[in-house]
C-alpha cells in the first residue's frame, strides 16, 4: 500500500491514547498512516483527564473485552513504558471496606479478579491495612499488588512521538467534518484542514466516536458524557498514602467511586465524581462536587484537608450506558458490518488507558486478516523523553549544567523545571506549542503556585524562540490566547472622563 497526496492506507480519527497506540502499532508494518486530531496536541480528551491508573483487572465482568484487554495490558505495560521512556510504578491498590456489609463486595471482586486471571489478590484485615496505610481507616481491604500508575499524558505523547518517528503523519487542529465512501471503495474524509482519502478509517474519536460513526452509518452508537471531577493535592502531603485507595464499588455507578490516587509525580488525586451531563465539552468544576470530594476523601483519612488542594479539574467518560442504566457496557472494537474497512472503537472508558496497547493490537489484527500486512523492518520501538533535571543525582546535575548552561536556569520553581527542558518541550516533534503542551511535557506550571512564577518566563521563551505575536501565544491552541497584544496608548472612557474632570477643576481654580 502506498501514500499519494493526501491518501493514506489508514486514517485514525482521534489522537488520544488509543488512537496513538494504534498509530504506533500500525507503524510496525509497511502501512501509511495518518492521525487526525482536532486539538492542538495529542491526548487532550479523556486521555489526560483520568487517574493514570494501570488497572489489574478485577473490576470487570469475566469474559468481557474490558476484562481480557485490561489484564493483558497490565502485564505488558512495564515493557511498553520502558521502550518509550514513560514513568511507571507498580504501587498496588487497596479497595477499602468501611462497613461489614461491604466485605461481601471485596470477596466478590477477588473471585471476579481470579476468574480474569489477576494475580496476587488478597483480602487483608484492618491490622494489615494499617501496616500498608497508616493514615487510612477501614475494617478490611482487597489488596492488589499488580495495580500500577503512569503518567497518562506522557504515555500518549510518547506513543505519538514513537509512531511519528516510525513514519506516521500527525495532523493537529484537524477536525473531521464528514466522511464519504467513494466508488473505488476508498474513504473521502473532509476536515477543516482539507481533504484526506484512505483505504481504512479507524474511529478512535473517544467522546465523539458516536458522531464520527454517524457520518457513515446513522445512529448506530450513542456516547453519554459522564463527568468526573478531581482535586490535586500539594506534593507536601504525598506521605499521606502509599497505595491507590479505592472504595468498594457501588453497582450501577458511572465510575469506580471517589478514590485517592498517588500520581507518578508525587501529588495525590481525589476523585473522580460521576455525573452524567448534556454537553461533551462541559469541563466545568462545581462547588458542590468539590465539597463532596473533600468530604469523601476524609472518609478514608481525616488528615486530608481541603487546604492541601492546589487545583481541581474534570474529565469526561465516554459511556455507552445511559444515565438511566448506569454501570458499564463492554468496549466495542469492530469493523462495521455495513461499511467495510471502517473500524469503530466505541465506549473506551476505564480501563482504556491500561488496555490501549491490546486494543491497538486488536485493531491491527482486524486489518491484518484482510490485508496480510508486511512488517516494517525499520521500526524502532524506542523513544526518549525529556530528561528531568530535578530527578537526577547531584553529580549528573553538575555534569548537565556543564554540558548546557540552560540546565542551570530553573524556570519553574515549584517543580524545578529548567530552561533546557522547556526548550526541548517547545521543540517537540509534534510541534505542539501551547502552554498546556509544555506543561504536560515538563510539569512546569503544575506545582503549588500554578505558574505564578514561571508563566511570564515561559511566555518569553516561546516568543523569543518562535518570534510569536502576543495573540499567538495560547493556553491550549485555538481561541485560547493569553495576551491581547502589547501595551498601547489607547485611553479608556473612564480615563478620559477623569482627565476632563481634572481639567474642569483646574479651570475653576
Amino acid at each position: 500500500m502506498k501514500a499519494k497526496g493526501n491518501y493514506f492506507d489508514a486514517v485514525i480519527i482521534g489522537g488520544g491514547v488509543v488512537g496513538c497506540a494504534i498509530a504506533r502499532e500500525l507503524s510496525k508494518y509497511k502501512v501509511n498512516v495518518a492521525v487526525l486530531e482536532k486539538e492542538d496536541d495529542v491526548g487532550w480528551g479523556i486521555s489526560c483527564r483520568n487517574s493514570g491508573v494501570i488497572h489489574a483487572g478485577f473490576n470487570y465482568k469475566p469474559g468481557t473485552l474490558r476484562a481480557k484487554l485490561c489484564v493483558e495490558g497490565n502485564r505488558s505495560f512495564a515493557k511498553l513504558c520502558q521502550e518509550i521512556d514513560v514513568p511507571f510504578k507498580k504501587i498496588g491498590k487497596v479497595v477499602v471496606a468501611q462497613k461489614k456489609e461491604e466485605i461481601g463486595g471485596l470477596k466478590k471482586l477477588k473471585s471476579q479478579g481470579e476468574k480474569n486471571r489477576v494475580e496476587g489478590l488478597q483480602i487483608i484485615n484492618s491490622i494489615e491495612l494499617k501496616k500498608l496505610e497508616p493514615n487510612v481507616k477501614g475494617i478490611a481491604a482487597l489488596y492488589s499488588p499488580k495495580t500500577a500508575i503512569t503518567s497518562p499524558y506522557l504515555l500518549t505523547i510518547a506513543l505519538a512521538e514513537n509512531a511519528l518517528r516510525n513514519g506516521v503523519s500527525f495532523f493537529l487542529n484537524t477536525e473531521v467534518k464528514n466522511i464519504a465512501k467513494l466508488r473505488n471503495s476508498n474513504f473521502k474524509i473532509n476536515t477543516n484542514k482539507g481533504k484526506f482519502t484512505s483505504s481504512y478509517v479507524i474511529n478512535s474519536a473517544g467522546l465523539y466516536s458516536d458522531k464520527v460513526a454517524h457520518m457513515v452509518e446513522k445512529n448506530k452508537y450513542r456516547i453519554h458524557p459522564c463527568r468526573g471531577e478531581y482535586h490535586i493535592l500539594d506534593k507536601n502531603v504525598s506521605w499521606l498514602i502509599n497505595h491507590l485507595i479505592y472504595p468498594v464499588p457501588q453497582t450501577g455507578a458511572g465510575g469506580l467511586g471517589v478514590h485517592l490516587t498517588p500520581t507518578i509525580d508525587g501529588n495525590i488525586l481525589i476523585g473522580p465524581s460521576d455525573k452524567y451531563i448534556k454537553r461533551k465539552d462541559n469541563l466545568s468544576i462545581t462547588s458542590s462536587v468539590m465539597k463532596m470530594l473533600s468530604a469523601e476523601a476524609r472518609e478514608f483519612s481525616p488528615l486530608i484537608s481541603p487546604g492541601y488542594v492546589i487545583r481541581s479539574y474534570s474529565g469526561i467518560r465516554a459511556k455507552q450506558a445511559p444515565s438511566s442504566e448506569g454501570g458499564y457496557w463492554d468496549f466495542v472494537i469492530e469493523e462495521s458490518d455495513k461499511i467495510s474497512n471502517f473500524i469503530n472503537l466505541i465506549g473506551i472508558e476505564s480501563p482504556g488507558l491500561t488496555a490501549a496497547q491490546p486494543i491497538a493490537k486488536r485493531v491491527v489484527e482486524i486489518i491484518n486478516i484482510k490485508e496480510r500486512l508486511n512488517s516494517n523492518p525499520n521500526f524502532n520501538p524506542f523513544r526518549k523523553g525529556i530528561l528531568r533535571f530535578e530527578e537526577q543525582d547531584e553529580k549528573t546535575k553538575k555534569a548537565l549544567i556543564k554540558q548546557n548552561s540552560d540546565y542551570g536556569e530553573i524556570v519553574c520553581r515549584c517543580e524545578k523545571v529548567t530552561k533546557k527542558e522547556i526548550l526541548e518541550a517547545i521543540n517537540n516533534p509534534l510541534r505542539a506549542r501551547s502552554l498546556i503542551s509544555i506543561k504536560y511535557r515538563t510539569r512546569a506550571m503544575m506545582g503549588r503556585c500554578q505558574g505564578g512564577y514561571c508563566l511570564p518566563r515561559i511566555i518569553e521563551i516561546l516568543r523569543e524562540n518562535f518570534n510569536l505575536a502576543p495573540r499567538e501565544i495560547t493556553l491550549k491552541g485555538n481561541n485560547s490566547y493569553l495576551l491581547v497584544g502589547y501595551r498601547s496608548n489607547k485611553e479608556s472612557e473612564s480615563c478620559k472622563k477623569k482627565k476632563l474632570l481634572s481639567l474642569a477643576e483646574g479651570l475653576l481654580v
Partner: protein
Amino acid sequence: MQEKEVIIIGGGAAGLAAAVACEQKGIKNVLIIERGNYLGGILNQCIHDGFGLEKFNTSLTGPEYAQRYIDKVANKKIPFLLNSMVVNLTPQKEVVVVNSQGLQHYRAKVIILAMGCREQTRGAIGLPGTRPAGIYTAGVAQELINLKNYMVGEKIVVLGSGDVGLIMARRLTLEGAEVIMVAEKLPYSSGLPRNINQCLYDFDIPLLLSHTVVDIQGNGRLSGVTIAQLGKRGGIIPGSKRKITCDTLLLSVGLIPENELSREAGIVLDSITGGPQVDERGQASIPGIFSCGNVLQVHDIVDNVSLEAEYIVEGVIEYLEGKLTKEREIKVELGNGLRYVVPQKLVSIKDTIFSFRVNQPGRKKILLFEDGRRLIKKKSLQRVNPAEMIRIKLSSRELEGIKTLKVKLV
C-alpha cells in the same frame, strides 16, 4: 563548600535591607542569593508610587525604592548572585544553589530567609467553572504588563480586593482596559483604604463587597463570569447571580509566604501567618536562621519590610558574637480580636516590636498587653483594619520580669 558569614536568600526589599544593615554593622562576607535577573524583587514591577513615605519621607515608585538599596549594595560592594535558585537549605545552614555556572554548596553561620511571598491561586480557593485562558493572579498580570509590556485583557473583572488587585485595576484602566468591577467576598476590603480611594473611586471602578465569582465561562479564552452576592453567613443570596461578559479574571485573593525551603529544612511554621515562628529577634526554630519581610508575615507597606529587616539584623550581630542566649521562653498568647502576632515567643529581654493583624475592621479599640492580671501596656487605636498591620514597640523595661504575655483587642 564555600563558607560565608551570612547568606541572605532573596534579593528583594527584605534581603536588600538586611544586606545593607549587615554591612553597616560591620559584618563581612555576606552573600545575597537572588533567583531573578535583577535585585529588587517584586518592587521592580510595582511602578506606582507611594513607597518610602515612612523610611525616606518621600513618595517613590517601587523601582526607585529598590534602587536606593541597590546603590548601597553596589557602593559597599556587597556580593550577590543573580539568576541563582536556592534548591535546598539544611538545618546545618548549608545552601545548595543552581545557576548557569553549576551547582554549588555554601555554608553560613547565619541564614536570613527573605524569600518573600507568592499569590494564592484559583486552585487553592476552589473557584468553580471552566478553565479557559484569561485567568491571572494580579501579580502575574502586573509583571506581564509592567515588565514585559504585554496587555493581558480588555474587559476585566477583579476578584478580591487585595492591594495588588486594586493597583492593577487602576493600572489596567490607565492602559485602556475596562475594569468592570472589583468583587470582594468579605463585607470589607482587604486592601488599604488609600488604595481603594486612589485606585477604584478615583476611576469610578465599583467595589462590590460581599460578592464573589460563582462560575467561570469559556473554553478557549474566558468569555464571562457569574458573580453573586453573599449573605451574612457566606451563603449565596438567591436571585443575586448575574453573568458578566469579560475576557479576563484577575485574582487578588491573598498572599502566602514562600516557605518551601524553610519547610524542607524543618523550620517550624505558624499556620496563620504562613511564616516561620520566630522569637523577638526574628530567629526561627533553628538557631542562626533568621527571617524577615513577606516570608515572615505578609506586609502591606514596604517600608515596614525594610524596618523589619534592619531590626532582625541586630539579632544576627548578637548571634554572631555569641551573645544570643536563651534566658526564658514565653509564648506570646493571642486573645480576642487578633488574627496573629509576630514574634510568637520571647526568649530574652529586649526592646521588641510586635506586629499584629486584627480579625475585622473596628473603631475605638484598645490593644492590651497583659502578664496574667497585670497590665503591661495599653494602646488606644482610633480605627483598626485587617488590611493594616499594627506595629507596636515594647521596651525591655516593660517586658522585664514577665511570666506570661497575652495580647488582646477590646
